[in-house]
Every structure is written in structure tokens, then in C-alpha cells.
């Protein structure tokens, strides 16, 4: 393999009838990197991931995944990729052990029994191995799914919202594990909605309405947006927000607890607009734009090609 890119695709496009769910997306992910895949619901994350592992045929685009052609080499890709589906898709009427054993057989894992036991141990599922998968709570299902998609020692893991509905402690443990595995050279593409998770990724790809809107490290993504954000504290924030939104240069005003974040991409226009509201009652402060501000900005700026 002449390249150290685990994923290297260009122009990936998928249409469902009229709808272009994924539109000309280019994505490069280096081996050993954790790439966060972000975007609102319905932006095409699942569709893109499915194209990478051969579950959907792209309408356009080409490239490689672990050095294999994404279209012609999908059988080879499947053997080396672990895919964790957004919706739990293991057999609820099989026990944990039976599920893992099934997957291990499908991938012809050598020393199957040992591999299954080791994977149960590693994820702390050993005591529950006789339990039916359907009886597990969300967090445990997530663990099972992760154990199953890693049993054949894949080089690339495609995880589609792996922590949706998982409690904070389990999420933290999950991410610690991800970082450990990345340290061993595994590559991750992880779809998520959580900002704290996004910040734990080496690199981010943000998509909206099927288009790639931003790509890079957290700092790069924030810098690229060229967004100016002010935080304001004081009474009647709701009315203030209403008034601010009508002003030129104010792209959005979003409540964060007791503060309001006001941002825009034209710093000078923003300054002029908020000047009128800088009264005694309010405490204004220029802050660093957060990822969330940036994402909200990106999605509001991009044309909605679904609605048209």
C-alpha cells in the first residue's frame, strides 16, 4: 500500500430518487486517526458510511478504502472493516456469546473460541455472555456491537452514532477505549452529535444536506469559519435575542443557559449592530467561537438542497 490514507475517496454521491443524500463528498482519513463525522439528522452520514463499506452503491465517485477500490473491492474491504450500525442490528434472540461466535465464524477468525472469550473479557461482557442480546440495556448493547465489529481485528472502524443514548460514564469509557485502539494503529470514522465527542477527535468532517461543509482539526474548523462570537448576560434575554436577530451582521443568537451567544461572520457589521444593545443592564464579552456555534453557522449558511 503506497499510501498511509485509510480512507481516500473523492466525489462520492448517492441519490435516492430526487434526493441527493450525499453530494460530491471528498474525504481523506490517515491511518491511526480518529475522524469525527458530524452533521444534523438526515445530512447523509449513514449513507456515506454505507457506501464506504459496500452496503450502498455510489452513483458517482471513486477512491479507496484501506487501499481497495470502494466499488470493485468491496468484498476485500468488508473483511478488514468493522461497521457498527446506527440501529442495533445483532440478533436479539441469540445470547452475547452466540452473537459473537456467529460473527467470528463469518469472518473465519482463527482460534475462534479464544477470540470470542477474549473479546468478551476485554469489553467486560464475560459474566453476561449467556444473556440474550435483546434483554440488554442500551449501553450494554453498544458494548456488544463494538465487541462484535472488532472481533476480526479490523484496520478501520466505521461507527455510526455509537454513543447515542448511552450514559456519560459509559461514553467516557467508550472514548478511552477508542483512543487506546487508535494508539495501536486503528483508524476510526465516528458519526456523532455530541460536541464533547467531536472535540476528542483528531480531525472532523462536518456535512450538511449531503455536502461537506468543513474538514480539518477542531482548531482549523473553527478558524475557517471566521466567526465572531459575543456572549451576553442580563435580563430578558429572549426579547434581546429577538431584537438582535433582526440586525444586520447578526447571523444567530442562541441561548446557552443564562447567556446568549451572538455571532456573525462579518466582525465589523456585528460590532455596529450590537453597539445599540451595550447598555448597563447587559454584560457583553467577546469569546472564542465554539464548535457548536460554528456548526450552527455552517448549517444555516448552506443552501438547503433538500427543500428545493
Amino acid at each position, binding site marked *: 500500500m503506497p499510501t498511509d490514507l485509510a480512507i481516500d475517496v473523492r466525489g462520492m454521491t448517492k441519490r435516492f430518487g430526487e434526493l441527493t443524500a450525499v453530494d460530491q463528498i471528498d474525504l481523506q482519513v490517515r491511518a491511526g486517526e480518529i475522524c469525527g463525522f458530524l452533521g444534523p439528522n438526515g445530512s447523509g452520514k449513514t449513507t456515506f458510511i454505507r457506501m464506504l463499506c459496500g452496503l450502498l452503491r455510489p452513483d458517482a465517485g471513486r477512491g479507496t478504502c484501506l487501499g481497495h477500490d470502494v466499488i470493485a473491492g468491496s468484498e476485500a474491504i468488508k473483511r478488514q472493516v468493522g461497521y457498527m450500525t446506527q*440501529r442495533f*442490528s*445483532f440478533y436479539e434472540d441469540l445470547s452475547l456469546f452466540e452473537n459473537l461466535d456467529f460473527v467470528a465464524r*463469518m469472518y473465519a477468525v482463527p482460534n475462534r473460541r479464544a477470540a470470542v472469550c477474549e473479546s468478551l473479557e476485554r469489553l467486560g461482557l464475560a459474566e453476561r455472555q449467556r444473556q440474550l442480546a435483546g434483554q440488554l440495556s442500551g449501553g450494554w448493547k453498544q458494548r456488544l456491537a463494538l465487541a462484535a465489529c472488532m472481533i476480526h481485528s479490523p484496520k478501520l472502524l466505521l461507527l455510526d452514532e455509537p454513543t447515542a443514548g448511552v450514559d456519560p460514564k459509559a461514553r467516557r469509557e467508550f472514548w478511552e477505549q477508542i483512543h487506546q485502539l487508535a494508539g495501536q494503529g486503528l483508524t476510526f470514522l465516528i458519526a456523532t452529535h455530541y460536541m464533547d465527542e467531536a472535540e476528542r477527535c483528531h480531525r472532523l468532517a462536518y456535512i450538511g444536506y449531503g455536502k461537506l461543509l468543513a474538514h480539518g482539526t477542531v482548531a482549523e474548523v473553527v478558524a475557517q469559519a471566521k466567526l465572531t462570537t459575543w456572549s451576553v448576560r442580563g435580563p430578558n434575554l429572549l426579547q434581546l435575542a429577538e431584537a438582535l436577530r433582526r440586525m444586520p451582521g447578526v447571523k444567530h443568537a442562541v441561548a446557552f443557559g443564562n447567556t446568549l451567544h451572538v455571532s456573525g461572520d462579518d466582525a465589523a457589521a456585528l460590532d455596529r449592530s450590537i453597539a445599540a444593545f451595550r447598555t448597563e443592564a447587559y454584560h457583553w464579552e467577546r469569546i472564542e467561537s465554539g464548535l457548536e456555534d460554528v456548526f450552527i453557522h455552517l448549517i444555516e449558511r448552506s443552501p438547503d438542497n433538500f427543500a428545493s
Partner: protein
Amino acid sequence: MSARVFSVSRFWAIVVKEFAQMRRDRLTFAMMLGVPIMQLVLFGFAINSDPKHLPTAVLLADHGPPGRALLHAIQNSRYFDFVRQVRTEEEAHTMLARGEVQFVVNIPENFTRDLCRGDRPAILVEADATDPAATGNAMAALRALMHTALQHDLKGPLSFLAGTEDAIDLRVHARYNPEGITAYHIVPGLMGVVLTMTMVMITGLAITRERERGTMENLLSMPTRPLEVLVGKIVPYILVGYIQIALILIAARLLFHVPLMGNLLLLLAAALVFIAANLAMGITFSTVASNQLQAMQMAFFFFLPSLMLSGFMFPFRGMPAWAQALGELFPLTHFLRIVRGILLKGNGLGEVALQLWQIALFAALALTIGVKRYRRTLD
């Protein structure tokens, strides 16, 4: 207001919702129209419990005019169609065993001479009586005809024979099921019916269940080929099929005393092909249907004509030609001939091979369609 027992608006909400859902599920809607039409056609046109034109072989050892007149009268009854003239008894018996003819009419040597002498020559009619319903009316017609058949020929010096019952000695030999026991016919057939119903349904759910429960996405993301998935889903149910066969065979022996004239191993081997054919059919439905309900409906749509056109419920030869041609397509039709042939007639591989081939062909075809239809992506 909220205490009202029956709210028209809530009731109407349900009605509107059901209509909307019904409209989306086209297949169910088609089935609701298709099933009654199919039943009407099958019951109304295909079923005839008074089978006529039954294929009959003739073993003619006397070529005199009375014999010919008798054959003419038999054919004129419209119950018998002479399809073949055979030379030897063995040939006649093979045709009976294979089910190619329902009757063999045997006009013996010296028939004319004995008749003229008033010696009451015998004519022997051998019937394949595995299905008593198929031969009953024909036999009654034959007996009635003996009185009148030779009326025109028995003139002059032979007129003393006319109008007497004793001119000819009609000997009927009901083979394979001499006592005409219906259970001998039904119970072996039931084996095929039960297998068709359960096997097609069971695998009909196999792929749709994966799709409905969302496990298909996982299965497809693993490196596997369609044939592995389909055959892997078929094999476990072959065992289930054999358990059903064992139950029916034991009941056939112990409760209904159905004879086992042929080779049990041959029967089990033939059953394997038949089970595989039904499982393959089911799995093919499963690749076409978009949910479990649709798969069940398809299985039912397959089962209904199998049952009616195979010769299980009604004599196969009682049906019009188009229905027989349609019936030949179903594995059950051929399996019924095999089971009854082995159990009642003692048939061997030679007699069942042709039927077995047709089932095997069906299985291969169904599986091929299934493999072709199996989608390897979620598109």
C-alpha cells in the same frame, strides 16, 4: 365530552388510517382480490369429481368383431380413453405403476369363440385404485355397459345371449388399494401437503425477518455470498421436514395401517429433494417480499393451487387439460405420485425417477431465482 363511549371522530381517524395503510401495501390489496378469483377459478372450473376420459391401455389378444364392439362401447362411455395398445401384461403393469394409465382392459384369447359358444368369456379390467374417487364412477359405468354393449352383435343364432347378464364375465381387479380405503390415498398425500405448507412458510420468513429486524444491514456488511446465506438458511429446516415425515409415516402405519410396499430409503431420498424444493421456493419468496406478512401471503398463494391442482383434494385426471398442465408445475403434484407410488404400488427408482427429476428442476430453478434476487446491498 371525553366520557363519550364511542367517538365518531376517533373511529373515523382509525378508518382513514387503515385505508391509507392498505393503499400503500399493494401486495396485500392484490392478494385480497387475487385469492377469491383464484378460488373461484379453481373450484369452479378446475375441479370435477366425476373424472372422465381416463387413460386406458388395451391388451387385445382376440381380434374378433365382438371384442372390438365391446371396446367401442367402452370408449363411447367417455370414461375411458384408449391411449395405448400393449402386447404383454408386464408392459401393462409398468404403465399402471408409473401412473401413465388408470386402467388396462384385457380382451383374452379366444374371446369371440367362447362368446359364440356361450362359455361366458372373461374380460379383465385392471384399475389403478390408489385413489378410489378417481375410478369409482368409471367402474360403475363399465358394469352398466356390459348389458348393452353387445346388443347389436348378438343377433341371429347368438340372440339367446342378448339381454342376459351372463354373456360376458367382467372381472375387475382393483390394484394397489383393492378395498378402496380412502385413508390409503389421503394419508401419504398428507405428507406432501404438510411439507409444502410448513416448508415454504418457514423459509419465506427467513430473509424478510432479517430485513424487518434490521439485522440484514449487519449481515450484508460481513463478507458473505448469497448462496452461503440462502443454503445456510435452508439446511436446518430439512431436519424439521424429516421430523414431520417421520411423524406422518408412523401415524400412517400405526393408526391407518397404510401399507409400505416399496423402499423406505427411496422415499426418504425423494423427500429430501421435495423438501429442498419447497424451502428454495420459500427463500425465493423471502428475497422478493418486503416484509414478513408479504412473504406469508406469497406462501399462501403458492400453497392454495398446489393443494387444489396436485391431485390431493380432487382427482388429477378429473381436471381440464389447462388445470392439469398447471398442476404439473407444482412439486407437490409429482411428490404425491412418488409417495403413493412407493407406499401403495411398491414402485422403485425406475418408476419415480421422472417425477423426481421434475421436482429437482423446480428446486434448482427456485434457488437460482432466489440467488439472483438476493440483494447484496441495501439499495
